């Protein structure tokens, strides 16, 4: 029977209770993660790195440095590596996974004109040995009048909201600010604005890469990023790029440090030097501090078991073998099935982590 209507009872909003603290709070109910089960499930989800140990989806990455120190060079390497239609590329010794198919990289390049930016993109492809077909996925806005608050940005937000953008690259923060490039409030508002644009994307949120100027004579600390602690606080990761120059003040290489990362890597990244020089074939060659590993012809399982002689995390195993996450998952499953490895927990960097090691024949772990 239909419930009888009663006009004498007020229709009041639901209110939070001790049992249901989010009752009647629709926005919090939609946004909040509440309770052990959901939090633990979320914590157990693997991080989907776009750039191993440095950036994952939905993050804001600030690349800071003085003019001419290599910010744009580094950013463009990331752009083409993300736009790549082929295998993951290595940038600063860390794997950059190409953006998912059907996604675009939106590049606001306000420091360089269209021609200069285009040449840099092509050169970046050559440097990383990436097919220039990757550039089909780059939407380049190399204009100084494309700023926050303009029609171009409003339309860019629509593109982002449509879920078609994997990466938003802003070069530089000061040039992208609507009016006064030195207005710190306006620059800080950009972070809030891009964060809000990311939030509108229902899933697979884009990564935002922002180049920002650093103080003169910066030493690579967070405080050196245009003098704003607020800005570095708004970023998930901060990379500091500093040029190394010869006696003639020419840039010979750039050194990248990582004063802030959202997830602490198993091994600290320290500082990584990279340079781009012409090879003997005349093509640009990218040289990073981490030397490429020689190819090992042995079967994958054999190489894995050698590494697993000592307790090793899944991440470490994946990096050492140069595998992708699903590949290392398959490998571990296979080794477990063959009863060749065991799993245990160890505290690493203050956090409990699963580590794997080779099983001793006949019983316990080696």
């Amino acid at each position: 029977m239909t419930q009888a209507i009663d006009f004498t009872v007020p229709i009041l909003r639901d209110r939070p209770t001790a049992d249901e603290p989010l009752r009647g709070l629709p926005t919090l109910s939609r946004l909040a993660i509440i309770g052990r089960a959901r939090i633990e499930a979320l914590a157990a989800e693997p991080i989907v790195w776009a750039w191993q140990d440095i950036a994952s989806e939905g993050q804001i990455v600030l690349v800071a440095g003085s003019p001419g120190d290599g910010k744009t060079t580094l950013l463009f390497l990331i752009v083409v590596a993300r736009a790549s239609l082929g295998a993951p590329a290595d940038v600063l010794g860390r794997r950059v996974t190409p953006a998912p198919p059907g996604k675009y990289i939106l590049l606001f390049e306000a420091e360089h004109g269209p021609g200069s930016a285009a040449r840099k993109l092509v050169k970046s492809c050559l440097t990383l040995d990436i097919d220039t077909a990757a550039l089909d996925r780059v939407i380049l806005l190399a204009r100084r009048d494309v700023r926050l608050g303009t029609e171009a940005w409003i339309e860019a937000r629509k593109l982002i909201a449509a879920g078609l953008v994997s990466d938003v690259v802003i070069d530089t923060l000061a040039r992208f600010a609507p009016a006064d490039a030195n207005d710190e409030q306006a620059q800080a508002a950009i972070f809030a604005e891009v964060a809000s644009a990311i939030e509108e994307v229902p899933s697979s949120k884009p990564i935002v890469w922002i180049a920002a100027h650093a103080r003169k004579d910066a030493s690579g600390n967070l405080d050196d990023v245009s003098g704003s602690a607020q800005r570095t606080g708004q970023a998930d990761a901060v990379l500091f790029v500093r040029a190394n120059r010869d006696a003639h003040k020419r840039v010979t290489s750039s050194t990248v440090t990582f004063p802030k990362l959202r997830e602490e890597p198993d091994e600290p990244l320290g500082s990584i030097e990279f340079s781009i020089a012409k090879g003997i074939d005349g093509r640009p060659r990218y040289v990073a501090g981490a030397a490429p590993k020689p190819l090992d012809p042995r079967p994958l399982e054999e190489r894995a078991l050698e590494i697993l002689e000592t307790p090793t995390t899944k991440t470490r195993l994946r990096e050492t073998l140069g595998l992708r996450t699903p590949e290392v998952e398959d490998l571990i499953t296979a080794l477990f099935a063959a009863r060749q490895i065991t799993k245990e927990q160890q505290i690493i960097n203050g956090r409990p982590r699963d580590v794997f090691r080779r099983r001793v024949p006949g019983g316990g772990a080696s």
Partner: protein
Amino acid sequence: MDELAITFLTPERFRARPQVGLVIRQDWHSLARGLSWPHVASRKDAYGAWCPAALEGGVVKGGRGPVSLLVADVDDCSEGAIEREAEALRNYAGVIVPTFSATRARPKNRIVLLPSRALAPDEFPIAWSKMARTLAAAGITVDKGCKNINRLYYACVVRSPDAWLGARVLTGEPIDVDAMLAAARAELAEQEEERRTRERERPIASTDRYIAAAIARARESVATAPEGGRHEALVREAYSLARFGLGASDIESALLDTFVARAGEARRREGIRAIRDSVAARGTAA
């Protein structure tokens, strides 16, 4: 209520201008029978109209007076709606009457409910809105136009005997008006409290934050413009704010008072015109 006072308009009085009806008094049962008894006619105004209020002097236009019945038209409904409404309202006294254009697939109807006492004109909007909210919460959406105290309703007319879907008489109790008003006031108090809280603690979206900063700068610019330069400052800042998609009324709210405070009340119209021209110019430029 022993007798209910309503205003009745014969077809002639309904068509005349100004419309002046007759205030009539009847007991509920005979009135309910009259309101729900179908007359067959090709025009819906063939048997005149009525108003649930005893309008002063019977004058419809701008008329007010004590209200004897709570009435709501349900236009947005599907097959079986009349039965469902009758079921949901079974505890109350009233009638549910199909209206002239009702069909079986879309049984548009009128809910007429009997209150425990006549409602004073000031009480009527509170009680009617409460009724509409409660019906909406039960999935019955009513025509908001019925909240007018002098609203006229056609007498019960049907195109043909075959088209008649049948009225439903609700045999419950009259609505306890005082309890209903108390409930309505509790809802209004909560709404007001929520509105105040939202005003006080409105979360500022990042875009809003940027626009708010731009408005603050524009206001400052208008406030500090020297005499002779105020109009120009207003035009410049209004044009600048329009780039965020703010309309003339938004920019008026943001800048006009500041301009008037400095330039004087006599220049308010000039300020409004300047803002509108600037917004229009931005639209043309875009």
